[in-house]
């Protein structure tokens, strides 16, 4: 599985040659307050990325209860939602990210089944 992911990472890099953020993945996790679902999602996300892309990612958590105006930018409806801001294209995953494989597929790190 690891090799597959590395391959995908390589491919994505090739597709984005002008990337300036130096391999770093930019992720955004939207939540509305510290709900159990949001906390689960954050834990799951951490776990997946620590395993697969350690040190090569950054996660920005946005609480829409505090900043409701930010929801429009990424067209957020369902919560919790994970948005891959970089590399392009933008990808969205909704739910508590409990299924690691689906998350990886959703982030284009694994080819869809």
């Amino acid at each position, binding site marked *: 599985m690891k090799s597959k992911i590395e391959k995908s990472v390589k491919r994505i890099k090739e597709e984005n040659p002008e990337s300036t953020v130096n391999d770093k993945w930019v992720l955004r996790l939207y939540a*509305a307050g510290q709900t159990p679902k949001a906390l689960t999602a954050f834990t799951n996300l951490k776990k997946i990325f620590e395993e697969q892309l350690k040190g090569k990612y950054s996660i920005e958590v946005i609480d829409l209860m505090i900043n409701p105006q930010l929801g429009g930018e990424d067209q957020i*409806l369902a919560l919790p939602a994970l948005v891959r801001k970089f590399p392009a294209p933008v990808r969205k*995953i909704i739910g*508590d990210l409990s299924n690691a494989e689906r998350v990886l597929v959703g982030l284009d790190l694994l080819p869809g089944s």
Partner: protein
Amino acid sequence: MKKTEHKFLNKTLPKSPTGIQGFDEITGGGLPKGRPTLVCGGAGCGKTLFGMEFLVRGTTQFNEPGVFMSFEETNEELIKNVASLGFDLDDLIKHKKIALDHVHIERSEIEETGEYDLEGLFIRLNYAIDSIGAKRVVLDTIESLFAGLPNQLILRAELRRLFRWLKDKGVTAIITGERGEETLTRHGLEEYISDCVIMLDHRVTEQTSTRRLRVVKYRGSMHGTNEYPFLIDENGFSILPITSLGLKHIISNERISSGITALDKMLEGKGYFCGSTVLVSGTAGVGKTSIASHFAEAACKRGERVLYFCFEESPSQLMRNMLSIGIKLETWVKKGLLQFQATRPTNYGLEMHLAATHKAVHSFKPHIVIMDPINTFVIGDQEIGIKTMLMRIVDYLKSNQITALFTSLTANEGTLEYTDVGISSLIDTWLLLRDIELSGERNRVMYVLKSRGMAHSNQIREFILTDHGVELREVYIGTSGVLTGSARIAQEANENAKLLTRKHDIERKKREIERKRRTLEVQIAALHADFESEESEAVKMIETEQDMIKQLERDKIEMRESRTTDDENITNKNLKK
């Protein structure tokens, strides 16, 4: 007083007026305040526009700002689309009277893993509502979520929560939904929004389309249940609740001239009733439009406003044609008293015509409406539709005290007392024009078939178009029937000749009698003379006779005297003794 008012308020459901023309009338005040309403219908039936107009009118007329959450069109598209209807959304957004929020959802971009909810949507909506203090919300079309989110269970639960939340928030909301196969909406939204359901419809019959609106349900309120035609034009929606009026028109005893003196004479010398409906029917080319134009001109001369719907001729053609009989309509058009509305009946459906009529009448506020002719509406077999439409028009005009004149073309075959559109029962005064073919020419005649509420003439009049307008002449009814045109003139000459002969005859007779009398008198005189001579003769004879008798008497006496002298003496002697 205050107490009853309080009671009243408690009983009725508070409503949020939409400001949409006609809609507040059929719903008795608008949409249920603080509750969601479902507006459903097929593609292109005007759901988005209905929602948008609700917001725009809400904020401009009732000072209730609104949020439009669009799931289909982007903000830019929306602004452009409604600009064509005269709504300046940009300005309203700038002044924080309306907030647009475009929710874009793309299935291919979304992957779901595990539990989620739609709190994000709630937050966005809440944020938009709070940012402008909105009282009204439109969600157009929330069903797009079904395409974007795979988990229907979660979605349905969340929608239920959303509508509950909208109620708690106290906003009046419109939720639009695409019409489903057998359900009102494709995804059964009516299950969640059950306070008020409005259905929009866009039907095409006989190649013409008609938009209709129906209030399917309205919890806790009376509402009109019919399908109401509506139209969308440069001023937005207008819905026509015309049939709700019933037969309670205020009637007038005032009379107005038909513009033709002789025709007025046939109608008790006063003309039509003000606010009545006049039908002029007849075969082709009998002068229906001329009668209509006369009426229009007369009204304009009185300073009244006339709205003329022409469905066959263009206004300029009509004005030119009427000039030939001395009616100058153009001056009145310039003065603004006469307005033409020229449309082809086939342009749009009956309901649209009704709506257009309604609108034109509403904006021009005429005293008189002329529709020339009405039977061009007959396209295919939809007599009932036309009848209902005309009934609505008549109703509407009557309730506004507008006198209406319709013309109707009747086919040559078939009875004349029959109109194609079967509206005779709606008509107060019915003038029938027909032509009579006799001795090689065709002449027009006219009579009043009916005229409610007046002792109208039962006479047939010949109808002549002259360069100074319509003239009505009495017709001759001879042994060969009604005589018109040159036959009438011939008959007139004939009658004159006969009259002259009779006059001569009488004079001759008079002379003869005079002569006879004179002869008689002479004879009488002669007889008198005869008689007199005979009489004198007789008198003479009688006298002679009498003389003779007297003489005879005398002679007798003398004789006796002479005979008895002796005797006497004797006697005397004896006596002495």
